[in-house]
């Protein structure tokens, strides 16, 4: 319906602006995909900083378990009486750090930002299929963020059962203080967040399917769009399952049902619940939880594909293989959730089956990594900060992904489950890789978002400190895990065998603090460049995709005149015979006679005939049909 309003006709969107925009409709309740993308990004950045500060707080506790930091009491009050953090609060920090990073930063902040920005731009659409739903999606997300933060101002503290909120711990307030009002807020926040994701996902899918410009068939879409499209499908199919998990948990907590609870004697009190199973929750949770990992990492893979190709001045190697591996990952992501539950008491045979599907998923992931490297091979690599973050992303994806071979293997997982090995694995493959994908996207598309350039030198500083910091933080954790150190431990002082790791914890915490402070370089760069950055040219990176054919100044409807028609795939970089090293998607083959290949005509005989005539006239090789 909305798609009919946003017609391809130029008349409605000529220079004069007939939409009266107030501050409120332009900046707050905007329905413009570009503004909503910026809203998602800035909210995501704020959440990321918040969650990062939480992580540094608990890192301080781990590095100096026997030391008082009176300054903590100033900010945290009763949760850090005498300057020493309480164990419950430590668990709250871990929980909210995980929730915010996974959902608010890497799901909404990443795919929310770039799906909104790039889907209409790169497909040649005036806006999203439903701008109103798009706006609703953002405001639901924003409300979810506010609720989650507000749980820090609750007497009993924020949710503290881990980001996976396994019941009964999350269901019984007497088991841990955070399972009181804090947990309720968590559940409400998450429900709103899922609503936001579903509304957004429907919108992305319908835009990709319906609003592509003339000539933009599915196999001419940039890999970014493929990634967002598949991410949206995965999200749409899996997020509602989390709603059911969350709502049932809400019932167990507030109405007295027993979906997840049975046979409980908590703090000496026999609870009346009977017949439920905590394992049911884990199945429901991980049915989302595992696809969620790919919801987080696939947009990052899409963004880096585009950035690596552009900055290597070379087509992405194996475009079709890249798409098929994304499709493969999307499909497989639904049948691997059980690998989070090998040792929960799930039927061991089922565990074996999940192990097989899990390790299969490594194949498409490996193909992607190899294709990235093949793209770099004999390229003409330009090191913009975005490109550096893209290379860093591939590095994390590989080093984190490889350790998945241990964890996906049920027999090895016996000893590694829930240890620091897991923490290291997923922080590299999904945390750092996705954050780097996101930062790569921010550096690359900043000129498109704000019409200004970011400072490259600060970008390099930011990259190197973060890249080094992330490896220094997460790499040593593997070894702690192999030694059997469990995650979510408040301190390592209670076990003799963990004492040797306190020195490593010190290294990790210092690396985390320095990498955390390095983000100030990014924040300064980001926010000051909005006003003070160099004015951006229309196509600063010499890129092929359609968003760079729009004017630098944002206008309603994106293109001032007709929407460009697409004639070619987005990766014609350094095509032999052409005078520049890029040919944008909207350049017809008739203008690039000197570089056309047989492959370009897709069996169009008339086009081949014309090309051959030209080739004859210019003494070039005749194309065979």
């Amino acid at each position, binding site marked *: 319906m909305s798609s009919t309003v946003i017609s391809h006709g130029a008349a409605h969107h000529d220079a004069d602006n007939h939409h009266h925009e107030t501050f409120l409709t332009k900046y707050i309740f905007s329905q413009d995909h570009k503004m909503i993308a910026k809203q998602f990004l800035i909210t995501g950045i704020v959440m990321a900083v918040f969650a990062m500060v939480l992580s540094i707080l608990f890192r301080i506790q781990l590095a100096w378990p026997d*030391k*008082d930091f*009176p300054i903590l009491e*100033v900010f945290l009050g009763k949760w850090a009486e005498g300057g020493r953090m309480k*164990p419950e609060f430590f668990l709250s920090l871990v929980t909210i750090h995980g929730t915010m990073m996974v959902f608010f930063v890497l799901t909404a902040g990443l795919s929310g930002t770039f799906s909104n920005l790039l889907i209409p731009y790169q497909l040649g659409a005036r806006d999203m299929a439903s701008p109103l739903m798009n706006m609703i999606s953002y405001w639901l997300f924003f409300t979810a963020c506010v609720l989650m933060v507000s749980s820090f101002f609750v007497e009993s503290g924020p949710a503290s059962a*881990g980001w996976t909120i*396994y019941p*009964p*711990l999350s269901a019984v307030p007497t*088991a*841990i203080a955070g399972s009181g009002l804090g947990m309720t807020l968590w559940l409400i926040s998450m429900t709103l967040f899922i609503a936001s994701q579903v509304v957004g996902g429907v919108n992305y899918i319908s835009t990709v399917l319906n609003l592509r410009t003339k000539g933009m068939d599915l196999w001419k879409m940039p890999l970014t769009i493929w990634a967002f499209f598949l991410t949206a499908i995965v999200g749409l199919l899996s997020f509602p399952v989390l709603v059911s998990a969350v709502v049932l948990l809400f019932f167990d907590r507030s109405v007295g049902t027993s979906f997840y*609870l*049975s046979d*409980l004697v908590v703090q*000496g009190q*026999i609870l009346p619940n009977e017949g*439920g199973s*905590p*394992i049911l929750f884990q199945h429901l949770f991980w049915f989302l939880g595992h696809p969620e990992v790919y919801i987080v990492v696939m947009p990052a893979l899409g963004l880096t594909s585009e950035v690596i190709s552009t900055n290597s001045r*070379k*087509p992405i*190697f*194996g475009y079709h293989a890249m798409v098929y591996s994304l499709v493969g990952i999307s499909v497989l992501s639904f049948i691997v959730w059980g690998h989070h539950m090998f040792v929960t*008491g799930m039927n*061991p*045979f089922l565990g*074996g089956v999940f192990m097989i599907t899990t*390790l299969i998923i490594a*194949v498409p992931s*490996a*193909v992607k990594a190899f294709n990235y490297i093949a793209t770099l*091979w004999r390229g*003409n*690599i*330009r*090191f913009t900060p975005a490109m*550096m973050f893209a*290379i860093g992303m591939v590095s994390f994806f*590989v080093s984190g992904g490889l350790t998945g*071979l*241990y964890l996906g*293997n*049920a*027999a090895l997982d*016996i000893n590694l489950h829930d240890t620091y090995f897991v923490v290291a694995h997923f922080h590299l493959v999904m945390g750092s890789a996705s954050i780097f994908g996101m930062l790569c996207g921010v550096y690359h598309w900043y000129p498109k978002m704000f019409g200004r350039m970011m400072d490259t030198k600060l970008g390099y500083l930011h990259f190197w400190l973060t890249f080094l910091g992330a490896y220094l933080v997460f*790499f040593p954790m593997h*070894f*702690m895990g*192999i*030694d*059997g150190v*469990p995650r*979510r*431990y408040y*301190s390592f002082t209670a076990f003799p*065998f963990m004492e040797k790791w306190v020195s*490593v914890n010190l290294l990790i915490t210092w690396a985390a603090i320095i990498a955390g*402070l390095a983000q100030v*370089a990014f924040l300064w760069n980001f926010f000051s460049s909005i006003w*003070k950055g160099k004015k951006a040219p229309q196509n600063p990176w010499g890129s092929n995709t359609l968003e760079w054919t729009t004017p630098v100044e944002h206008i309603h409807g994106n293109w001032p005149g007709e929407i460009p028609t697409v004639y070619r795939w987005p990766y014609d970089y350094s095509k032999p015979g052409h005078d520049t090293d890029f040919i944008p998607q909207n350049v017809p083959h008739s203008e690039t006679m000197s570089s056309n290949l047989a492959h370009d005509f897709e069996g169009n005989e008339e086009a081949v005939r014309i090309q051959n005539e030209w080739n004859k006239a210019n003494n070039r090789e005749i194309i065979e049909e």
Partner: protein
Amino acid sequence: MKFKINNRFKGVLGCLLAVGLFVSTPSFALQQDSLAQDSAVTAVADSSATVAPVDSATAVPAADSASVAPAAKASSSSSSPSVEPESTIDPQVYKDLTYYVLLFLIICTVVAVIGKVLSVYELTSKMNGKYNPFSNNKFQSVLFLVFLVAFLGFVYYGYAVWGSWAWRAAVTEHGKSVDTMFIITTVIITIVLVLIHILLLGFPYIYRMRADSKAFYYPHNDTIEKIWTIVPAIVLTVLVLFGFFTWRSITNVPEDLQKSAIQIEVLGEQFQWQVRYPGNDGVIGKRNYKMTTPMNSYGIDFNDQGAWDDLQASDIVIPVNKSVRFHIISKDIIHSFFIPDFRVQINAVPGMTNYFQFTPTVTTAEMRERMNDPLYDYVMLCNKICGSGHFNMQKKVIVVTEAEYKEWLSTQNKYFTEDLQKEFADAKVQEPSHLASASLN
């Protein structure tokens, strides 16, 4: 929106910043507050040695404990009637914070100055016509190469140092095959990790953009792509099969072996473990959580006479080279029964029993010798987030010889103590009313 200040102001601001930093040096500021002269002397010595953050950081707690101890005590002891709650925080705390904030600002300033110097250098070389637009590109590519070397060194260091800290060979039968698989996987992924990083970080250097270079238009090569789809697939198939059969052999124990093993029940609760041995009959008695009372905190159902001889143990003691079957249950929330040395882990889930059967092969005494640590103990710890005491929920595991085990077992007390027998008898009398309420459900 331009934030520009003229030069005079800049100088003043810089001076203010420097003076502020100096004054708020923790040790220096402390000197103004404290009366203890001896600590002040050392503190001044520290602060005069410029602003080394590590030095001053170590000086703070030392001086703190010496001179501001009374204040700290006042804040920690809740019994002392403090008149105003704000005064419990030592003002020094704020000064320390200011110091670190200022220190960070100084670093930022230095970074900004270096940035300016670089851009001035760039501008002058542009004016002199000597500017090479690719110099930075080259610099970054070299950094990637440097990073590659550092990364490989770091990986080596990790394997050599931390790896040796972390690695202890398994001391159970099934653990040996787990270890073999672990090592095979490690070899494979280390090779892949190193090769990929050499390519990933080497290519940026080799193929960096230069003035006259052009990329090679190479969109796809189906043969290569097929190869690198099939090769990982084959490697993974091998790993999967190996892993699958190992996993089955660990979890799928034949029924007669299940029955012949020693049965031990472990119950997890916030934040401790309880261990129950079956007693002479070799059968663990029934448990009914509804029977939990302050005295019978385990919730053992003494209507089942098999429970009467069940033994209570403070540690998990098991004989070497005997198959042991653990029944893992939970009283309240999910815990996890995890013995790293044994490669044993299974969750304790309320409402269901999980099992793990294994055979230890090395006694604690032998292990102590092997580790050259007379205090070494196997430990079972909770590995599923369970609340504030999660980080200290442990049970010692002692592996002994068969004879020692028998002897130890004979010294253990029964769960069904005289007090409990009395309670049980009293409950029996009231049973009819219990039954009536049960039938209503």
